[in-house]
């Protein structure tokens, strides 16, 4: 049992590290938050493993609180993202740099590549002709209802 503790601790450490890397690497706010949740899960795993080792409910209780707090945090984070999205219409974490020092170049070497389409436009796909006649739109003259 003690031995297996190390397994779980190892897995917990790996999840934590991967979560940290994901947080630092991704620019999407949502994915950053998910990575943070991943780190929390790694920590919960650690706690549960220790709880199992010691044979009491301390770790599990703590993990329950972690879940509760994670839920609060996710809720507030989402609300913040909604508000931020309203301001800048993007979920890019790099868009918010008002607290930067002046004179720094914007972003290190991240040029914005053009938006990549999910699927390439296949030239062989059929093109449909428009259905029906294209209706004529009469010109509007002032004072006369057409």
């Amino acid at each position: 049992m003690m031995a297996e503790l190390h397994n779980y601790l190892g897995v917990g450490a790996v999840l934590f590290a991967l979560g940290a890397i994901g947080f630092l690497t991704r620019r999407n706010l949502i994915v950053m938050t998910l990575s943070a949740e991943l780190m929390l899960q790694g920590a919960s795993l650690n706690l549960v493993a220790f709880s199992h080792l010691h044979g009491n409910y301390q770790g599990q209780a703590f993990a329950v609180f972690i879940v509760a707090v994670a839920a609060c945090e996710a809720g507030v984070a989402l609300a913040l993202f909604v508000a931020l999205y309203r301001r800048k219409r993007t979920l890019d974490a790099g868009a918010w740099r008002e607290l930067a020092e002046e004179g720094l170049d914007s972003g290190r070497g991240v040029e914005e590549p053009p938006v990549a389409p999910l699927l390439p436009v296949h030239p062989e796909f059929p093109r449909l002709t428009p259905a029906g006649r294209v209706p004529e739109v009469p010109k509007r003259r002032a004072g006369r209802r057409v």
Partner: protein
Amino acid sequence: MSETVRQIALWSIPLAPLAACVLIALTGVRWLRERSHYPCILALVVSLGSSLGVLAFAIPQTPYEMDHPYYPAVVSAGYEWIRIGGLDVSITLTADAMGAVMLAMVTLVSLLVAVYSAGYMRGDPGYARFFAEVSLFVFSMSMLVLASNFLVLFVFWEGVGLCSYLLIGFWFRRPSAAAAARKAFLVNRIGDFGFMLGVFLVWVTFGTLDYEVVLGREGFLQQIAQQHPGRLELICLLLFLGAVGKSAQFPLHVWLPDAMEGPSPVSALIHAATMVTAGVYMVARCTPLFVHAPWVQVFVAGIGGFTALLAALIALTQYDLKRVLAYSTVSQLGYMFLALGCAAGGKDVVTLAVTAAIFHLFTHAFFKALLFLSAGSVMHSMGDVIDMRRFGGLRRALPLTHLTFLCGAAALAGVPLLSGFWSKDEILAAVAAASHGSVLYAKYFLVLQIVAVATALLTAFYTFRAYFLTFWGEERFPGEAGHHPHESPPVMGVPLVLLAAMAVGVGLVVGPTGLFGNYLAQTRGLTSGEEHAIAWMPMLLGSAAALIGIAGAWLVYVGSPGLPGRLAQVLTTAYRWSLNKFYWDEIFVAMLVRPLQGVAWLCRVLDDYLVDFLVDAAGRVPVMLGSLLRPVQNGQVQTYALVMLLGLAALLMSVLNVWAQ
């Protein structure tokens, strides 16, 4: 007379003008305005009265005083000024014979000039300032004369220099006047530097600065002369350097002609009668020191003679009337130093030499002030034009000025029986006595004698040249003179007349009768009761020189009108050299001013490109450091998180490191 009266009289000589100055300075601009001359003239009347009183007191009355002719006449202990270490300086007023004579002359001339100025300066916006500065000047000058130690002398030496600066630059908005004032001050500074060194050396050698000790104890002086061989000569040389600056001798004479930028009363008071004579006074006062340094006295005589001749040569071609008079002053001051230097001729010549110098100083004050005031009167009538080429034949338009100018010119030239004649004759006699009396320097003084006579001739020539150019010839008025040039008002005329009377009469009254000489002999360093036979040869030579000079001027400028022009064309080089003051100003600029400007430029370049560069570089270092660290704060949350994670990793490593061991 009771002691208190003496003391009050003595203190009122400097303090009355000081009070007037303060009063005018505080209230002159706002309240007194056109009446600003009243306090000044009143104070000067008080000073004059007190000076005459002191003159009377200084005659020894008690048998004790008569037996001890070196007893200083009136002493008033004043204020303990400095008492540090061994230096003990107090502001004590001492008026002995020489001082009393100087004071009388200073206050009288000042009073007459002040009265004259009340008319001359009328309407000038700086009227109050003028009289405040004149009062301040009289205060400084009288304190200079009354000082009883070298430090107080030096303080008021600078004080008169300051007043000279203020008054030369009275019309300070005129660039030439401001520049002239600066030049006067700076050139004086050079002399004052030597003077300061001399005072320091006196302190170092004697341990005190009091005249009582330094000049009064012959035995002490002998001791010092034996202990420190060259010391006394050095002191005398340095003190003389101060006199060279203040009294405009070669090579520091360049400021006096430029000082004519000031108003004519200022030229009369300061640059003829009083301030420039301070140098002569100081050297005469230090006669007990100078007798121990014969070659310095010879040097003094040489400088004096050379200056006299040089200035006379320059005055021959000047066309600005005041400049002629300025060079004339330089020349006459040279005469005085020549006389002072003749004391090298031996012990029995000392009194004669010093007396001659002081007597010439005395008479020169009157006739030179008279000449300057007359020139001022001419300027006043001619609309501030003083270029002699632009006016002429003024003797009918300005009769009073003409007469007074003539009196002054005749006195200056040395026309027999006028005051200048007697004093000049005494100087020539002193030079002759020196060349006879001295063994070492006989030939030297012979040369100086020739120089003196030649200068007398030139003096007469250029003085009457000026007179003839101004008052004879056809009547011409410049445009600025307006309709009809009028004679000066009485407020200006009365001082002129009084000065003319003095210029004519005072020499006769006090000179040959021995009054002056006997009175003056009660000063330290001079012995009384010396009898000198009247030296006929110098007297004849002097008179002849004067008359030849006058005749020559008449011939050249009145007799043959085109002659000056033709002479100038023939003697072109000499003429140009004389007209351009022997290029001394240009020499100074090349020798001193340009190198200093070069040094200043170098310093500025160093400051701009080295010091500023270093300072800016030091300032840029934090900026650079900041720019290195600033990219960390790029506003990106993930950058901060990365740094946190790195920190965590480092912490973990260090903890593990510790734990693993």
